[in-house]
């Protein structure tokens, strides 16, 4: 059970948007996380800024911890099979679709890209169906 947190959601969302605009303004690159990680894993030559971005992403909660707001370990499924299967689907699917929540859901929709709007509707819908099945149909 989590409560609706509109204020922190709006502040956090604005920061995500700001990061995307800054990355484009400074480096000319789109802040899509699956693209940034995928490019790092493929034979892409411009690896350094990708590593720096991901390092910044991981160090944000470390800074939060130092400031007195520690991050707790996330609630994850007990089944290792589900953890691994879901992760494979996320990795393969985002690369096949050329984007994830950030690349399509934020950056793409902000550019009014039809591809990204369609992608976002599809991944949101399939996730909603999976949650409905696992939480309400299968009693998970």
């Amino acid at each position, binding site marked *: *059970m*989590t409560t609706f947190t*509109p204020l922190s959601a709006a502040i*956090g*969302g*604005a*920061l*995500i*948007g*700001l990061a*995307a605009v*800054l990355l*484009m*303004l400074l*480096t*000319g690159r*789109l802040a*899509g996380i699956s*693209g940034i*990680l995928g490019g790092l*894993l493929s034979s892409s030559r411009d690896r350094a800024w990708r590593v*720096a*971005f991901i390092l*910044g*992403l*991981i160090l944000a*909660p470390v*800074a939060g911890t130092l400031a007195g707001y520690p*991050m707790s*370990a*996330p609630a994850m499924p007990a089944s290792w099979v589900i*953890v*691994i299967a879901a*992760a494979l*689907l*996320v*990795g*393969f*699917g*985002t*690369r*096949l679709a*050329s984007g994830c929540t*950030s*690349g*399509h859901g*934020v950056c*793409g929709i*902000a550019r009014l890209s*039809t*591809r990204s709007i*369609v*992608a*976002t509707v*599809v*991944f949101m819908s399939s*996730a909603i*169906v999976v949650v*409905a099945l696992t*939480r309400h149909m299968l009693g998970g």
Partner: protein
Amino acid sequence: MLLLAGFVCGFIFGLGLLISGMTQPTKVLNFLDLFGAWDPSLAVVMVAALAVSGVGFAVVKQRAPLLAPRNQWPSRTDIDRPLLIGSALFGIGWGLVGLCPGPALENLATLSPRVIVFVSAMAAGMVLHDFWQIQRYAHAELATAGAADG
């Protein structure tokens, strides 16, 4: 400078995910759970992010980036099968655990074994995709594969 810019942007992005609560899979799953105790926070995160990036992108659209020769905006506009199938597969994985690539990477900071395994398997899925694409286009021109959306 490019490295510093990447780091700062990643850090701000991470702060955004952290403050909004989107690093917590439970909060994401509760947004996706329309038939349960629905938590609309993720929708607010998206609207706020879109408001800032929509205006910001419009402003920076025509200008050259400060630290690179040119902007690399995605160029594709077609709705093809990989886009639809890939998004559907991604959604299934997202709905099973509540982690998409950004929050998954950021959660590495907790050193949770399940997160480390998740990120490793996610990376393996990406590499698997690239390997499969290379096999598919082994005798075709790789250049025609097109630019990524991000």
